[in-house]
């Protein structure tokens, strides 16, 4: 059986925040290079996965970008409703990371 660990346990930081009032950005940051590599090389963090977890279409994803100097992965997407407008539920976008917590990474 393949051993897996949750993304939450591998990452040092897993957070979400507005990047401007119309976009939401998620940062996954590692403090151990082996954890960053295992997640990056797993190929699990893809548009398809993010679409499924957030119930969005691929056009709503601005990008999934790996940033070596910070051992970080950034996922930026459209906000369902712009910050503070009628119907918005998270003005700072600060609690929208949770669907990523249980992503299982083979280790």
């Amino acid at each position, binding site marked *: 059986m393949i051993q897996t660990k949750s993304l939450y346990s591998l990452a040092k930081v897993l957070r979400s925040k507005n990047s401007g009032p119309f976009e939401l950005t998620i940062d996954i940051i590692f403090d151990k290079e082996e954890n960053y590599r295992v997640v990056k090389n797993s190929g699990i963090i893809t548009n398809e996965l993010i679409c499924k977890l957030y119930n969005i279409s691929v056009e709503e994803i601005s990008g999934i970008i790996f940033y070596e*100097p910070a051992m970080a992965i950034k996922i930026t997407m459209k906000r369902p409703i712009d910050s503070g407008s009628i119907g918005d*539920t998270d003005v700072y976008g600060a609690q929208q990371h949770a669907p990523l917590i249980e992503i299982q990474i083979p280790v």
Partner: protein
Amino acid sequence: MIEIKILSPCGILGYGFPKESFQRGLEKKPDVIAVDAGSTDAGPHKLGAGVGIVSKRAVKKDLELILAGGFDLKIPIIIGSAGGAGAKKHVEWTMEIIEEIIQEKKLFFKTAVIHADIEKEYVRNRLETNNLFPMKFVPQLTENDLEKTNNIVGQMGVEPIIEALENGAQLIVAGRAYDPSAFAAYPILKGFDPALAYHLGKILECGALCAEPGTTKDCIIGHLRKDHFIVEALNPIRKCYTTSVAGHTLYEKDHPYILHGPGIKLDLSECKFEQYSDSTVKVSGSEIEFPKQYTIKLEGAVKVAYRTLVIAGIRDPIMIENIEDIKEEVINQVQNYFDEIPTDEYQIIYHVYGKNGVMGIREPSKQISHELGIVIEAIASTQELANTICSAARSTMLHYGYEGRKSTAGNLAFLYSPSDIEFGPVYKFTLYHLINVDDPKELFPIEYFDLFNKEELKNDSN
């Protein structure tokens, strides 16, 4: 000059900081104190309504320390995005506080005020000539929305701030500014690498959020040198690590290493983050491009409706099980009761905490809590109608006889008496657009004052 030290007291002016940290910062003889006072983070309300996000008392408490510290060291003090959103009302509010402090503490500064307000006519002209470019996922502005939009601001770059510094201003109160501008202006004026200056500014603008444990409510200092900079926390309980500083570089940005600002494109793809001492981090390798076309980002907000809301708890298990049907049926009953009010004049929105209150339609979890918190909000074209609809929805849900109900005395545990809270106007961003400009300073006029003697100064360097 081989090094410029930039002291950042806190992440937002008025958030507060320990005075011991600030004192430690002053002892390091900083060359400039810079602080960011604003953001779009808290939504469109601040800009639309012309109010701040922190109290006057809190801003005054912070500014008393900052102004006295800068005055003693005879160094420039730069405030970016004054008052929260950086429009005229926000700048005036900040200036009143500063004037009070200057009078009370008998301080003298040549003070520059840089305005960031944009005329509606100017924006209309841009719209009509197809020179108004929405940011990603932003709908194009409509003439109708423009008509109702208040307080339009533009995000200034370093150029207007540099002009104020060149004209001898020691205290600079800038309206809406690109967050790093307040931090990068002084070192760029002194000939330091703009790539490093902007990158350092990006890190310092949130106070000690780039340290561990991170917070916006503490001081941080940046040492900018020829080909690198050092970030140092000023509270011994916090340390800067490569992970925390590198991590902060990508904070609240759409891209981790390409950052666009007024007249700049920062490229941090080849950056190096090194542990310099056990608590400080060295950063090098930041690069910058100056696109041929200089762009300014505009922000504007419009009042769209009024809101009234009620907060209640639900503990009965049968009620919880049936909550989706009950929500729908309450809306139906309200619409039937007020059949003389067109249904497009109001909206009833539920937020159910314990189910999907935080993520709404994006919530993947099916788990439901043993108790739910419900916010029923009514949105309408007038406050009176919002109150009316909220009251009807609240009383309908309180007494609604759902199938199998046992708790027949009432369905909601109200948090307050009275239960309904009149919220006031609701805003939305209408402008989050770029425009092209020929001159980075053309939209940002500067005035100079002697606030101790309460007089306006001529625009010269004396």
